């Protein structure tokens, strides 16, 4: 999803492979991280952590996130969070949709608002009563 957006709109910002940011990144527009970021990110836009890119944060708030590199920290996305086969994400995750490719690494809690099919809802309800 983020890759498709990039192909269409491009990114407004990029932290290059040889660049290290220590601090807070905020704002709007798509951001590609190929280098290292130590600090929180709050972005009205999509965040792409490319293969080789790394973010260590307490919290990340973005509209969409694609992890092809490494992310440590709790992530909240309004839209989609995807972890590619090369990607690693350690932290709690809350988003509308979540997906990970085979080979992806994920450690943490997943909190998504999605509706269970009716038969599963009954099972969940039965589980609670017990």
């Amino acid at each position, binding site marked *: 999803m983020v890759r498709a957006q990039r192909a269409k709109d491009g990114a*407004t910002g990029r*932290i*290059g492979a040889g*660049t*290290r940011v*220590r601090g*807070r990144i905020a704002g709007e*527009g798509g951001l590609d991280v190929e280098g290292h970021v130590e600090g929180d990110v709050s*972005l009205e836009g999509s965040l792409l952590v490319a293969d080789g890119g790394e973010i260590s944060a307490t919290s990340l708030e973005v509209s969409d996130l694609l992890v092809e590199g490494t992310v440590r920290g709790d992530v909240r996305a309004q839209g989609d969070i995807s972890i590619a086969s090369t990607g690693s994400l350690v932290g709690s995750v809350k988003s509308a949709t979540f997906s990970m490719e085979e080979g992806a690494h994920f450690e943490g809690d997943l909190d998504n608002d999605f509706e269970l099919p009716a038969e599963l809802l009954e099972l969940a309800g039965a589980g609670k009563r017990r």
Partner: protein
Amino acid sequence: MSATIIGPGITIEGEVVSDDEVTVSGTVRGKLSARGGVTIERGAHVEADIQGGAMAIAGSVTGNVVSSDRVDLQNGARVIGNVKATRITIADGAQFKGNVDMDT
């Protein structure tokens, strides 16, 4: 390696250190240091000491600027701080308040 671009909607509060070139169209508060060239575009706000290679400044900078090469203050630039570089140009339409040090 690809250059670093801080887009027009983006604010970084902290330290940016790069082995490469850095272009700022947004806002940086803190410290900016690059081994390559630094471009501060028109409309950009930098409240930071800047260190780097060749620099082209057309935006607003509050802080000391140290270049291993040249500094060009272009039309639209607004610089408050000291500038240290081997070569310096100040274009018509650039505002500058501070000291110049061209001592190599």
